[in-house]
């Protein structure tokens, strides 16, 4: 729980996420019925690498909160699509760009990148410029190749 620069932020664990989210949504005086955004931040240095961030808003009380859950690489986070259908595509995008799996998500597949794309571009360790003209099948092989050369 922290308050900074005008926003409330709650940090919870993966297990209690669904239960806390349900209470936030259904409780009368919080009533966060509008899930405006689901995104993730890749803190490469940390062990639990990804911060999955849920920005919630209440249309009745007109206040906002940000819910954060920490997840390591390869660990899956429970999906909140059941509570807010809005999160469906947003979670698909986080999976597509970060690789964070959401179990319980109705249709978890890539949304922006082509389906057969390897790697997750938004990660910090993903190269900014690709191999350019010699387009390798998998950008990650190209990355290994480049590291070996240096």
């Amino acid at each position, binding site marked *: 729980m922290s308050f*900074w*620069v*005008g*926003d409330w932020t709650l940090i919870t664990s993966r297990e209690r996420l669904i239960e806390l989210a349900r209470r936030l949504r259904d409780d009368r005086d919080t009533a966060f*019925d*509008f*899930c*405006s*955004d689901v*995104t993730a*931040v*890749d803190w490469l240095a940390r062990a639990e690498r990804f911060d999955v*961030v849920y*920005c919630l808003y209440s*249309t009745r009380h*007109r206040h*906002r909160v*940000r819910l954060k859950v920490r997840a390591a690489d390869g660990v899956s986070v429970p999906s909140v699509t059941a509570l*807010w*259908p*809005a*999160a*469906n*595509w*947003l979670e698909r*995008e986080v999976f597509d*760009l970060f690789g964070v799996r959401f179990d319980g998500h109705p249709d978890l597949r*890539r*949304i*922006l*990148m*082509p389906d057969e794309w390897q790697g997750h*571009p*938004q990660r910090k360790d*993903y190269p*900014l410029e690709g191999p350019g003209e010699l387009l390798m099948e998998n950008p990650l092989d190209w990355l290994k190749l480049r590291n070996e050369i240096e």
Partner: protein
Amino acid sequence: MALFDTDELVLNMGPQHPSTHGVLRVVLRLDGERVVGSDVVIGYLHRGIEKLCEHRDYLQIVLLTDRMDYVSAATSNLGYCETVEKLMQIEVPPRARYIRTILAELQRIASHNLWLGTHAMDIGAMTVFLYNFRERELVLDLFEDYCGARLTYNAVRIGGLPLDIPAGWDQKVRAYCDLFESKIPEYEELLTHNRIWKERTQKIGVISAEDAIALGLSGPLLRGSGVPRDVRKDEPYAAYADFDFDVPIGTLGDTYDRYLVRVEEFRQSLRIIRQAIDGLPEGPILGKVPRLIKPPAGETYHAIESPKGEIGFFIASDGKSITPYRFRVRPPSFCNLQALPRLIKGHLVADVVALIGSIDIVVGEVDR
């Protein structure tokens, strides 16, 4: 009677289709003319803006925010700059806030103009398209006088505005408002009470208030279903707190209500612009901003009301580097588009065209 079971026809309203407002592909499963199911395929215009911004410093990013929703660039600029100001607790002088509000509202009119033109053209009314673009030209001229660009303005800086309004610009804006006020009835005369227009839009793509909120819709789409949610009223930013304007609300949540909401927003924007012009305070146009922008460690999310809906910016900075650690945009078109499969289920192919227009998406913003 299974004798005549027509197998489902899969129709690809492909990336190149005159009425998908950009490279959007909708895979329709049809039973005869009726849409049984659909799947929206996006990503054709994905340029990885969020990844790019992580390697740009805070001033260069203003340019990139233009390119997302290229139809309402000023609003994205404003949203981004306000988020950074919130992160660094910078105070923006009142004159800058007023001018910013005028720019945002002019941008809203231009975006709605483009929407109404293409939406009417999809349903067959060609003349409305040309009337709208004639008015949109006037707004683009105003922007050209102010910041030299017609589409991607780059007209807002962190902490205020790069340049003050040229002499006589406010008279031009006032003249434009009076002229445009007389043009709106021209659109309504052609469409609002037109029986064919009503028949093509009423009770098409109905979405209830609860579903709209649950699906995360925002902007005219949400207000069309009767939810009085407008970021300008709920979380007033720039100078909206000083102006009184009302938020148009629909009742049924069908395409016709969304049309009425947006046309009414034309008038409300004019009201705001007039009040802003009249009450334009004197004073500096740029707050005290450190030469090198390096926000403290931490993250924030700030949303403003773009013509398409609530556009939100989430910026996380690690306090050390001059580039944001994580830059995230909550695009209204992306979330509104999510409702498309639910809206078009059970309608005819011709309605799909009207509905895509009614959601008012810009694919640049959907794919980022």
